[in-house]
């Protein structure tokens, strides 16, 4: 992202995607990153993206309670385990960047996703080398918060979205049988 306009556009896309995944979530875009490291239990999922001249990464950060409370497989017998929580955090990153991937393709920016990496701990911090080139969303769901940070840029410079890369996509939830 080279301009404020691009950052605003990506922030808006992230807000939309965040609301699609968590419909009850109240989202705020362009938020500041937490100063210093967390002093409480935190789960952090990262997922890289890349193409010939695009690179970046998404970071998803929340407490284990957030992922436990939003875990999508209901079981009356057991709460999600720590392994379930980490897996779900990775899937939130995957579904967030997957949706952004489709939306960006329709706007003219193509890239492929990596595989999520998830870590947990109680003393974590997000550092971005060039803080101007990132989009961010903070979502609130009840007592819990979710922070999404996306860094994406053209390594060749120039606009992020290009008419030459406009691509049609299949919508979320749609199915095609051949």
């Amino acid at each position, binding site marked *: 992202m080279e301009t404020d306009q691009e950052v605003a556009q990506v922030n808006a896309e992230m807000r939309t995607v965040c609301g699609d*995944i968590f419909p009850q979530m109240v989202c705020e875009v362009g938020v500041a990153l937490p100063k210093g490291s967390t002093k409480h239990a935190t789960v952090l999922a990262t997922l890289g993206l890349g193409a010939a001249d695009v690179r970046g990464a998404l970071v998803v950060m929340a407490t284990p309670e957030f992922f436990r409370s939003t*875990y*999508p*497989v209901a079981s009356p017998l057991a709460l999600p385990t720590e*392994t*379930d929580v980490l*897996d*779900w955090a*990775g*899937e939130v990153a*995957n*579904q967030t*960047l*997957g*949706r952004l*991937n*489709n939306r960006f*393709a329709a706007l003219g920016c*193509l890239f492929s*996703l990596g*595989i999520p990496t998830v870590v947990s701990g109680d003393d974590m911090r997000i550092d971005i080398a060039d803080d101007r080139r990132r989009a961010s969303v903070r979502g609130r769901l009840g007592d819990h918060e979710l922070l999404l940070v996306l860094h994406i840029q053209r390594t060749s410079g120039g606009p992020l979205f290009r008419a030459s890369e406009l*691509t*049609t*996509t*299949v*919508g*979320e*939830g*749609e*199915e*095609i*049988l*051949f």
Partner: protein
Amino acid sequence: MAHKILLVDDSKTVRQQVAVALTQAGFTAIEAGDGQEALDQIAKNADVRMIVCDVNMPRMSGLEFLAAMKQAGKMGNPPVVMLTTEGKSDVIAQAKALGVRGWVVKPFKPDHLIAAAKKLTGG
């Protein structure tokens, strides 16, 4: 007898979500965490009637799995439906050329997936 469906996704959460939907509809679900595990499961379970497969997975991706199935002459039997966040038309065309029978973009609607499973398994 319940038709057996193989679920291939590196996320246990997604496998559980899909398994719950399909078993409630009368199917039996077995699981694999990537394309290589899926090939192993197919070798051990000759009665698999359909495969639901993610695209983006470690070790062996969904498209690599399709290519391996095609090379082994097994593509189409059992039929494969992709369940993924990936929605770009060129990737779908690539999978279609490899013989995939369906494409569902996450988040999936259980009713749609069950309808597709019934149609493709004859059950």
